């Protein structure tokens, strides 16, 4: 089939192209199961080598190729042509400065990530037998969903609250904090809850729900943010996430 791509472009080095503009590319012999990323590569390799975008793993795990595709944040490697039709519009994710074509400045995003203490803290003595700390399958399950985050920024750059105010830490940073706050082995939940109780923390979330469908890992982000809000209100993450008994084979 034939597909027309309409791509938002910008090249800071070329006068006349240093402001955003649209450019169309036509591709033939496209298979319905082709990924958008493959089509962008075909444009780059066959038609215009100057087209710039980030990519790496090409199967939705590394988080490099978040883009706004037909108006929705997606990973280019995880959306197929058959789900988009023959007219496909691609533009950079919103809310971060565009550096060239589909490449945005990720530094503000990672700065927010670093703000929430995104690392395990437990200074108690290690088990004397030299082995792992114990954790029940139920306790492990409580934060399972938020361990899936790949920091692609699809959620944060789909969030109107973030568009309105870039100092808001954004959904991705809250997801990362959630992963530790609800980990029974971690001891810095109180510090993280304090950070997220600040004006640029969770309360800038207006529960608009854009983040959840934007997530290519299908993390229930709005729910996770709600759990963090509840933990702040109660002063503790205890008892907030209920987990069913987990069946284990012997």
């Amino acid at each position, binding site marked *: 089939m034939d597909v027309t791509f309409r791509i938002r472009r910008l090249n800071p080095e070329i006068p006349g192209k240093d402001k955003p503009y649209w450019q169309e590319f036509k591709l033939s012999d496209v298979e319905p*199961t082709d990924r958008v990323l493959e089509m962008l590569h075909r444009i780059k390799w066959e038609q215009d*080598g100057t087209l710039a975008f*980030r990519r790496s793993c090409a199967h939705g795990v*590394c988080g490099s190729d978040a883009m706004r595709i037909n108006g929705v944040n997606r990973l280019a490697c995880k959306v*197929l042509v058959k789900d988009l039709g023959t007219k496909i519009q691609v533009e950079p994710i919103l809310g971060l400065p565009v550096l060239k074509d589909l490449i945005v400045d990720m530094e503000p995003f*990672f700065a927010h990530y670093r703000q929430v203490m995104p690392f395990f803290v437990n200074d108690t003595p290690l088990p004397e037998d030299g082995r792992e700390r114990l954790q029940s399958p139920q306790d*492990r399950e409580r934060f399972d969903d938020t361990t899936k985050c790949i920091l692609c920024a699809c959620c944060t750059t789909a969030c109107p609250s973030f568009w309105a105010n870039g100092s808001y830490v954004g959904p991705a940073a809250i997801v990362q904090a959630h992963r530790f706050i609800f980990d029974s082995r971690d001891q810095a939940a109180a510090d993280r809850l304090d950070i997220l109780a600040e004006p640029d923390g969770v309360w800038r979330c207006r529960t608009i729900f854009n983040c959840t469908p934007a997530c290519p890992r299908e993390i229930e982000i709005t729910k996770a943010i709600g759990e963090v809000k509840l933990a702040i209100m109660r002063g503790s993450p205890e008892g907030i996430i209920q987990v069913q008994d987990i069946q284990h084979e012997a």
Partner: protein
Amino acid sequence: MQTHQFDAIIVGAGGAGLMAALYASKGGANVAVVSKLYPTRSHTGTAQGGIGAALGNHEPDNPLWHAYDTVKGGDYLADQNAAKVLAENAIDAVIELEHMGLPFDRTPEGRISQRRFGGHTSNFGEKPVRRACHAADRTGHMILQTLYQQCIKNEVKFFDEYHVVDVLMNNGACVGVVAVQLGTGELHVFHGKATLFATGGWGKIWQVTSNAHSLTGDGAAITFRRGVPLQDMEFFQFHPTGIYKMGILITEGVRGEGGVLLNRHGERFMEKYAPRIKDLASRDVVSRAIYLEIRDGNGIQGKDYVYLDVRPETVNRYLAEAGETRRVTGEEIEKKLPDILDFCRVYLGVDPVKEPMPIQPTAHYAMGGIPTNVDAEVVIDENWTVLPGMYAAGECACVSCHGANRLGTNSLVDLVVFGRRGGMKIAEYVKHADLIPLPANPTAEIEAEFKRIRSSKGKSKPGELRGIMQKVMMDYVGVFREGAGIQQAIDTVQELRERYQTDLSLDDQGYKFNTDLIETWELGCLLDLAQVTAKSALARTESRGAHSREDFKERDDQNWLVHTLAFSKLAGPYQPGALHLDLNTNKKVDLSLAETDPRFAPKERVY
């Protein structure tokens, strides 16, 4: 040009690089991590099934059994001292990852949960053992995230999206690297006492691969061009279960959970090839079996793929046949293999709980690479002579703990074990080593090469050259090989190198995020590594592990219990003309375990 000075420079921010950075900085070294990707984009994050360690959380296990499986899996080309270190250190390394917060799945008792994996057995090959420690089917993702988190906690200095393009040598030592800052196109010199390469593999040489676009073997190529040998390059693993046509990996954990391979007749064909452990034989064995089935017309619809079936009814039928009491449900499959199910649903429209998955072997992992000892120090000859200041760990390195074929889970073990050992060794080294001055004009050669590429006015698009290379390597230097075919690949790649040197056509003449230029430079790395791979494959006139010669079907321990060392004969990194090699086959395989334990002596490999 800017110059930065550090005690230690870590090139690459995957598992090995981050582990090395963490341990070098914990040991007091001033460390910079220089990476062409944001660290969390690294390919470690795509590893799925697990990390092997003889914790014995479900059933008895022993690091010696792990070492045995590794040696046997490697078809006796693994250095046995390295396999022993790998298996013994794996236990501490995994426990330490848990202490860093890694969210492993748990047993009912709260211990790290373990699953079966190909080639991992108890009691010297007796039966499959649960050794792979897992976090669902995203174990690599969790390792990468955890290590990056710990680096942030320890305030490690990162240079993200700085692409290392040359290595600097002076007075016979490595003194740093040159990197291009992708956002500006500016060259930066990183000057240090120790440099560790952790740049990953080069699966992009082949057409069907599980590897990321960024896996172009940069570290291996630039050190090779500066005189460091590449070891055992003929050994590249084809993982048996890639998604048909796309190459996306389907973890061996699927078979660890009971999934089976079926041909067009619904026959579980691995029973013929590995009667004892069947679908859980090591990867080279299973990949060959799939090729042979396809060749015999047993592919699905007569085509070049077979089925991987993890439907509960199939799994339970074979579990019952094997006399096992365990049964699985669709829900458990969902819980244990969420990403695999997601890949199949998204890319194939296939639901693995209800339908079998179409799979074919996919180029996956470089057993060969930059030769090192067990402390990640780069060694440059058959006498294990250390090159001062240069280290390598992870897939780009060849310790060699994997020999001719790596076992599943052992890549993650390799990263954490040898990344950690390298980091510790560096911390010790930089305390007493002097900072050797930079060579004169450290960026001159790479600057000239970039200028040449940027201003090229020929007719050959890099994408076209890459496509030809990938096809010829897939056809002739893949799962099965024979002399004339390999020679054809060598000739084709040489033609491509000539076109690359004289006839390139580029669109982007800019500096900022010039991905056209960078991809083209990466293609140069791939072409060099393809050539070294094919020439090493032609030279090795035997079949061993992942290197299967149809014109030399037997393993030849008399002549080939040695590593291949390939040296460039070119005088500099960007000399025009053919890539002539000096192939040295004097480096003997370490058989130290076999000296005291006959079970480790090379013998016929049956599963």
